[in-house]
């Protein structure tokens, strides 16, 4: 990746994440360093409570890092103005929108907010970008439907379309495949893969779909009790790191099939 140094979009140097409780920092994970270039799909995996959401929140600037640096386009994350950051980084959250009464078109158009004037007027370019993101996520037919009428899978596509409409070079997704069946999970992850390739965006998502993530991601962030590893999935398998992911008493990782199997 160092050969593409000029295209590094998202970078972290010795990052430690966690919470400030009673002014004493509670470190959840530390020594996280990576360089992600444009057009790649990165999956973030780890057991429940290991700090995946905290890492995503820290990378999106919603939470302060305890130590180390996060750089976006070679500039410190914390030095960005909120609106400027919103033109570079968008998020897809697990939470449903507060207002279910929004139409799909309204929901996706809200992604244009960082680019519009104080009134929120949509220009011709804004409308084009909204339509393009609806097309890219294949939900043009749904645009006049209300959010309360959508299935979980459709809602997830709408949320991704909103992030695309925000037109940022980085998209962070927090467990975009929860509540979906296997078909729709694979469907969403394939969509992310395609978007990373076609739009050259850097897409980072957290997931519990380790099998699917291994097959689709260019890079993986593996959060374990021992530490955080970042590498290509094949390399991580070769080095046997997936067995560190969960306690060894119930399941083990079969490096031939690339799957977890229940221990008998």
């Amino acid at each position, binding site marked *: 990746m160092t050969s593409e140094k000029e295209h590094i979009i998202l970078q972290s140097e010795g990052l430690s994440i966690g919470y400030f409780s009673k002014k004493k920092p509670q470190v959840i994970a530390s020594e996280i360093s990576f360089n992600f270039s444009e057009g790649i799909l990165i999956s973030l995996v780890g057991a429940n409570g290991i700090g995946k959401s905290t890492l995503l929140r820290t990378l*999106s600037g*919603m939470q302060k890092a305890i130590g180390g640096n996060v750089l976006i386009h070679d500039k410190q994350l914390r030095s960005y*103005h*909120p*609106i*400027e*950051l*919103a033109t570079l*980084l*968008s*998020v897809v*959250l697990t*939470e*449903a*929108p*507060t*207002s*279910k*009464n*929004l*139409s799909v*078109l*309204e*929901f996706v*158009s*809200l*992604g244009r*907010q*960082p680019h*519009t004037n*104080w*009134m*929120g007027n*949509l220009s011709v370019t804004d*409308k084009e970008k*909204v339509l393009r993101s609806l097309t890219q996520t294949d939900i043009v037919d749904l*645009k*006049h439907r209300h959010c*309360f009428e959508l299935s979980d899978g459709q809602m997830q596509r709408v949320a991704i379309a*909103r992030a695309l409409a*925000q037109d940022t070079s980085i998209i962070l997704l927090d467990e975009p495949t929860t509540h979906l069946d296997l078909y729709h999970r694979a469907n969403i992850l394939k969509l992310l893969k395609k978007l990373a390739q076609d739009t050259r965006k850097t897409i980072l998502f957290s997931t519990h779909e380790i099998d699917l993530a291994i097959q689709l991601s260019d890079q993986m962030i593996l959060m374990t009790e021992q530490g955080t590893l970042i590498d290509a999935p094949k390399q991580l398998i070769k080095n046997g790191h997936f067995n560190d992911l969960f306690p060894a008493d119930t399941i083990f990782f079969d490096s031939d099939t690339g799957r977890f199997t229940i221990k008998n």
Partner: protein
Amino acid sequence: MDTSRSYKAIFILLIVVLAATFILNISLGSVGIPLKDILASIFGGEVSKASWDYIIIDYRLPKAITAVLVGSGLAISGLLMQTLFRNPLAGPFVLGLSSGASLGVAVLILGAGAFGGAIGGLLTSEWSLVIASALGSFIVLLAVLAVTLRIKDTMAILIIGLMFGSVTAAVVAVLSYFSDAEQLQQYVFWSFGSLGNQSWSGVLILSVCTVAGIAISFLVSKSLNALLLGENYAKSMGVRIKRTTVVLIITTSILAGGITAFAGPIAFIGLAVPHITRQWITTSNHRILIPAVLLFGSIIMLICDVVAQLPFSEYTLPINAITSLIGAPVVIWLLVRKRKLLF
């Protein structure tokens, strides 16, 4: 945000209906005045009887304008609170804002006795009522906000509102025990709610509060739209949540506090009007919703006032009773028919 259809026709219709209800409101009262003379009086023409001119200019016109200001202001404050608290049941009344305002006024009117004659008289001037009422509702809103920041449970916020209602009732009971009949009556009449008996200077103060509140709502409509996605999404799009929340809280207390000071606590307009509006205006875009809610609020308040003044009779019912009688069934009907209140 892109709104899929144009609402021009609905807006034209609403403006026509508003004009019609405004004229209707002025036409009806204990004294029958022909429409010709009413229009002549408003537009500065020749009126058949001087007393009619007096009734219209000094009594009915300020009352109708007050109804428009109160209706639109309360409805807008309800809309703002529903978006801010992410709760379709939010409104100045349910959240205890009106209770706070009542508390402020109760302390002022009933407590004025303790300060004695001259100072007491000074305290109950028009402006001091506004300030006491706005302060009361502002304090309640701060308390509600403090709870919202700690507890993410919307039920808790509604319970806080109810508790403030109880506290107000208790404080008023204690104060009334120690105050004389005249002050008590003054407070009780204030709490019935009234659009009438407003001087032109009172109407002016009320318009300043309402117009300022509505203007600020328009200015923050972009952030309000972002809040429809939830706080975290709004933050990710560059909205400064704390600043927006503070602006919304101040705006609502100016609107609800100012209005309650002049017209007394008026129930259900803030809660019900945004929901009634959403039956016709299906978008969630605040740039469309704010003017629509404003128009609906004015129209509904004018109609409530027509009902309250019992045309052709000498009696006037408390406006607060009428808005509750109309508002409560509407909310129940919406819940039963739609199964849930969307916002």
